[in-house]
């Protein structure tokens, strides 16, 4: 399984990036050919366990097998699969940009309130004031981008850790959403009737079970995989997360890249806000807070290093699936659903330990090495 063969989507690059021309002379093409066979001769398994998603794959397979055994046929029936893929798709839409941000060394704890704010915005604009739904959707997505822009500007200009900046944003925006919702709509819960086209695009159920969000997730996977693993922006993201100062010294506009990534995670959260509002024909101010930690769990279980510089899109995909399987699989077993959190907690710790082990393997692959992998 390789992220390098992912189909291309339009590259959602950071806006206004400077164009850095490559200094590679023509003679280098020949060197690429000459040395390629040597690289390809490395053993397959050795390379596989050096990938960031090695631990995540083991985690996903383990929980899948576990719930297949204890959940029985219903867990892998169409309805069973839909239940965890639906959860995975909504979480995944947020976890992917949160993962990119974490690889760049920043956290976003504001996705919960951004989701609520954007979904309430859509419901108030198009439900309470009866504006066209398209206008509400644009407003909702703009709320997400604006929250990300503010997060990004504050975090990069003030040097206050993004943990604090986005935690503050999560509370501030929750308060703002609640206050404005009550003032404008007189309620903390606003309903809206999406037109058939919008309902189809954002809130439909395919075959009566599968949320349309799954397709949004797949499209986003393609775009983010391209961005991180195929475009030069991906190289900048890894460099910024690895050593921001060295990255800046090579000419990368690190602040702009980070602001763009914060806007990306705001947009992801807002998109799920729109999807949920169209799916459930309404919005509540309390929606979305579970995504704050669930997205981080998915990303970290997926092998992304909490402090940045290391991770993969395939890993985030597997981490998201693992989370969703545990979260929903428990209902197909005879166990009380209260146990799901216990499993998730233990799984998180186990996954991080496993990922640390694999990362050490990846950075100590040769004899005579002295450098320790960062925990």
């Amino acid at each position, binding site marked *: 399984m390789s992220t390098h063969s992912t189909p291309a989507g339009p590259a959602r690059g950071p806006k206004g990036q400077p164009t*850095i021309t490559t200094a590679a002379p023509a003679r280098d093409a020949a060197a690429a050919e000459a040395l390629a066979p*040597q690289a390809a001769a490395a053993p397959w398994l050795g390379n596989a366990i050096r990938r960031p998603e090695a631990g995540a794959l083991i985690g996903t397979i383990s929980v899948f097998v576990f719930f297949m055994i204890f959940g029985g046929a219903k867990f892998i029936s169409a309805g069973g699969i839909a239940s965890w893929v639906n959860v995975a798709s909504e979480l995944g839409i947020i976890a992917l940009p949160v993962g990119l941000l974490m690889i760049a060394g920043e956290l976003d704890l504001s996705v919960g309130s951004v989701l609520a704010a954007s979904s309430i915005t859509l419901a108030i604009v198009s439900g309470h004031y009866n504006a066209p739904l398209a206008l509400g959707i644009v407003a909702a997505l703009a709320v997400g981008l604006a929250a990300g822009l503010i997060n990004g500007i504050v975090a990069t200009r003030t040097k206050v850790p993004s943990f604090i900046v986005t935690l503050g944003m999560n509370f501030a925006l929750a308060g703002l959403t609640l206050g404005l919702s009550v003032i404008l709509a007189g309620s903390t819960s606003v309903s809206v009737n999406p037109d058939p086209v919008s309902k189809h695009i954002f809130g439909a159920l395919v075959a009566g079970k599968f949320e349309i969000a799954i397709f949004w997730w797949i499209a986003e996977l393609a775009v983010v995989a391209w961005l991180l693993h195929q475009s030069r922006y991906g190289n900048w993201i890894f460099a910024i997360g690895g050593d921001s100062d060295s990255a800046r010294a090579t000419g990368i506009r690190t602040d702009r890249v980070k602001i763009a990534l914060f806007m990306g995670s705001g947009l992801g959260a807002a998109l799920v806000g729109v999807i949920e509002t169209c799916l459930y024909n309404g919005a509540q101010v309390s929606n979305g807070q579970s995504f704050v930690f669930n997205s981080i769990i998915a990303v970290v279980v997926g092998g992304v290093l909490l402090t940045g510089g290391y991770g993969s899109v395939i890993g985030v995909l597997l981490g998201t699936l693992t989370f969703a399987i545990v979260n929903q699989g428990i209902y197909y077993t005879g166990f009380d659903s209260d146990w799901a959190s216990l499993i998730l907690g233990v799984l998180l710790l186990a996954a991080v330990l496993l990922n640390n082990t694999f990362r050490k393997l990846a950075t100590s692959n040769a004899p005579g090495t002295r450098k320790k992998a960062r925990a």
Partner: protein
Amino acid sequence: MSTLLTVTDVSKFYGPTQVLTGISLKVEPGHVLCLLGDNGAGKSTLIKILSGVTPPTSGTVEVNGTPVTFESPKDAGAHGIATVHQYGGTFPLMSIGRSFFVGAEPLKRWGPLQRFDKKTANAIAVREVRSLGITRVTDGSRLVGGLSGGERQALAIARAVYFGANVLILDEPTSALGVKEAAHVLRIIMQVRQKGVAVVFVTHNVTHAMTVGDHFAVLIHGALAADFRKGERSREEITDLMAGGETMAELEAEIAAYQDQHDGHTPPPQ
């Protein structure tokens, strides 16, 4: 031989504190200038000025005879001045190829998009590092974290030379390394020197400096205490200069006096 980089009467103040006083130096192609000095002597500040991190308060920096003002390290790089820091400035969790081309990725058309050409990046990075004698590196997709300290220095030096550095500033490249690794880095410095690159080698290890240096400058309290060519001073003279000479002699005299009064015992720890 023409002078690549000329520093004339450079001073630097941080607020009211003067950290550099009237430094004048010349850096020539194919020569190794060793910048020696104790901690706090002003070596780091001088490097920051040369590498574009901070401007001098007064004085001029000239590249090929033209006065320049660096806006940023990137700008200094555009003038052919590259700096490699003690830990290499590389990214331990990135692959060798990715790390080598950060900020200057080779691109390949892929439909309407530009793809980062990792195959070329890996091959060039491996070739350039191997050209400096690091033969253990064969796969550019391996992580930089798997390299030793000396190999990482080699990677950073190879990168700087590949991207057209005429002046290579090495900030304490050997001080975090073991004896063998340090020797390897010194050999790499000689190789780079042979390519006609001017090297500014910052160190407080006199042995390392004497091994590769053509030209020596000793900084004490922000001033140029000595500026001489290879063979003009002995190792002891340089060591004395670096340690502030008198300070070391005073300490020795103090200990000797104490031993005289206390039956040859050394002073107890305080």
